[in-house]
């Protein structure tokens, strides 16, 4: 590739094009410079062998849209098709509206991003409180009207979110219970106090781990399901259809899900506690030479208030998980991508909130001396 562009001096400076002005040669072509584009009076394309948009782009950058548009009709050796191509490119660029350059500021943009995050976090909190209030008001309005209770939906949700989750909750807690027992046995053996492994497992699962693990599992399993169900209804405009038929989405969709979790999470929490203690029992019996009757006797000596304290957190977790899941579903905007983003967000938020509330509750119980 050489001499693709020559400027013939003279009274009428003529721009001579030759060779292939096509995409494969774009990198060489764009290196060419024209010192005095304004003086070009004619284009001579007799030696031009090929031209495409990439070539037209180079010519456009050299001459400018206006100049190119003026020169094309007075050119030699340009076939009508090539003239049409050059004119189409020149016209499009000359007539294009708007400014392409968006200025970027390294620090400013970062700061703006931080600000947007803060504002969006605050708005998310407000939206949640708003949604919580709306749901409570709807729930209170429903209480004296039993004919509007949606028992079928409630039972269906309890089946999905509660009963179907029993195996995974039980297995997971059983395994964690066994691991905690191993850990306790290893550490307590040094002090010759392996018998306290039983107390460790019982206290840990009753007060903290049982309900916490059940809630985290439900946050992953059910909050995402709620978001996906309500979000796909939103994408499908089903929520709008409900509204124009004068039905309340909160009443029909949110309340049954909220109540289902309120009922099932304490039950699942209890299943989790029992499974965890069973896991601990297995390890104790097999590796610590503590008989099963001994194990059960020690567990029975644990004050029942610890079990109640643990289970008392379950309704709070249930409300948080159900409402975050439903609210994220309502926030879905129209596309499958948005549905995916909000499902992820529902899981992340509900797990975060569950662990946060659990930590606050632990501190509170400790300070109260319970």
């Amino acid at each position: 590739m050489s001499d693709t562009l020559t400027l013939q001096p003279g009274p009428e400076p003529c721009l001579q094009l030759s060779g292939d002005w096509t995409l494969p040669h774009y990198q060489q072509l764009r290196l060419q410079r024209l010192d005095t584009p304004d003086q070009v009076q004619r284009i001579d394309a007799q030696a031009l062998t090929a031209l495409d948009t990439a070539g037209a782009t180079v010519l456009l950058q050299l001459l400018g849209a206006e100049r190119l548009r003026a020169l094309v009709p007075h050119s030699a050796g340009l076939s009508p098709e090539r003239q049409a191509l050059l004119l189409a490119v020149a016209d499009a660029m000359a007539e294009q509206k708007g400014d392409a350059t968006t200025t970027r500021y390294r620090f400013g943009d970062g700061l703006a991003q931080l600000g947007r995050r803060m504002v969006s976090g605050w708005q998310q909190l407000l939206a949640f409180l708003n949604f919580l209030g709306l749901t409570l008001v709807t729930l209170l309005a429903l209480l004296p009207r039993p004919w509007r209770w949606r028992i079928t939906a409630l039972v269906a949700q309890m089946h999905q979110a509660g009963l179907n989750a029993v195996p995974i909750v039980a297995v997971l807690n059983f395994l964690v219970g066994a691991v905690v027992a191993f850990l306790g046995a290893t550490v307590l053996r040094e002090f010759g106090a392996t018998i306290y492994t039983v107390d460790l497992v019982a206290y840990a699962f009753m007060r903290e781990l049982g309900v916490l693990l059940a809630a985290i599992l439900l946050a992953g399993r059910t909050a995402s399901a709620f978001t996906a169900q309500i979000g796909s209804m939103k994408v499908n405009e089903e929520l709008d259809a409900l509204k124009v038929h004068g039905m309340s989405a909160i009443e029909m969709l949110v309340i049954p899900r909220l109540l289902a979790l309120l009922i099932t999470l304490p039950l699942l929490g209890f299943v989790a506690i029992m499974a965890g203690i069973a896991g601990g029992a297995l390890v104790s019996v097999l590796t610590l030479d503590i008989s099963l009757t001994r194990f059960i006797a020690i567990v029975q000596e644990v004050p029942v208030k610890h079990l109640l304290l643990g289970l008392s957190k379950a309704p709070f977790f249930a409300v948080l998980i159900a409402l975050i899941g439903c609210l994220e579903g309502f926030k879905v905007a129209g596309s499958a991508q948005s549905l995916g983003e909000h499902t992820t967000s529902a899981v992340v938020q509900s797990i975060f909130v569950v662990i946060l509330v659990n930590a606050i509750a632990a501190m509170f119980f400790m300070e109260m001396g319970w």
Partner: protein
Amino acid sequence: MTADEAIISVRGLRNQFGSNIVHQDLDLDVYRGEILGVVGGSGTGKSVLLRSIVGLMTPKAGQVHLFGKDMLSLPATERAAYEKRVGVLFQQGALFSSLTVLENIALPLIEHAKLTRREASEIARVKIALTGLAAHAADLYPSDLSGGMIKRASLARALALDPDILFLDEPTAGLDPIGAAAFDQLLKTLRDAFNLTVFLVTHDLDTLYTACDRVAVLSQKQVLVADRLDVVANTDDEWIRDYFQGPRGRAASQAADRIDN
């Protein structure tokens, strides 16, 4: 290759899904530089035909020639070289949702023409202008675009490598009448400027009357007729009569006459 030569030629095409035969002994020629509109009722396999020609699905039997080469028997590497000369506009646009409009158009340029990001962006901006998009649209993501803008951005991506043949799957579906008319006009302008051959699957009668040189009607698993619009419209077939002589067909025909006069 002369103007009369078929740039796409389909012979004896047979497509079937299970026992459902969509195409049987289907023949079709598309000539260089023409805009061919493909119409047919729902389920007659318009999109299937398009997908067979561009190589997205392999037909059960038959031959598909692009640029005079049998695409089905060509080795994959040679076939890829020809596929670069084909642009496709999918029905929903199929823009990559994680990339901006500019990056969507620059992607084939970077991948196939081995350009740097900066060089590809320069050419992509020209394509954006050619398809009538505003300059600021370049930095938007597909989720921020309206239906008409998605079609234009997708068309710009289909044109990225200066293809010889452009396949369009219902490009005006979901556009308002003004947007659809502008798109038809854009198609004609681009065809004239780039000497494109256009294979256009459509339901839009206005597009047929204003933009298409020839119309192919798919019916009874074959191309029933492929000819100029006035010939096709007067073909003696029940479906074609209903299609072109129905209230919508007459309205589109009258509108086209008014534009011509």
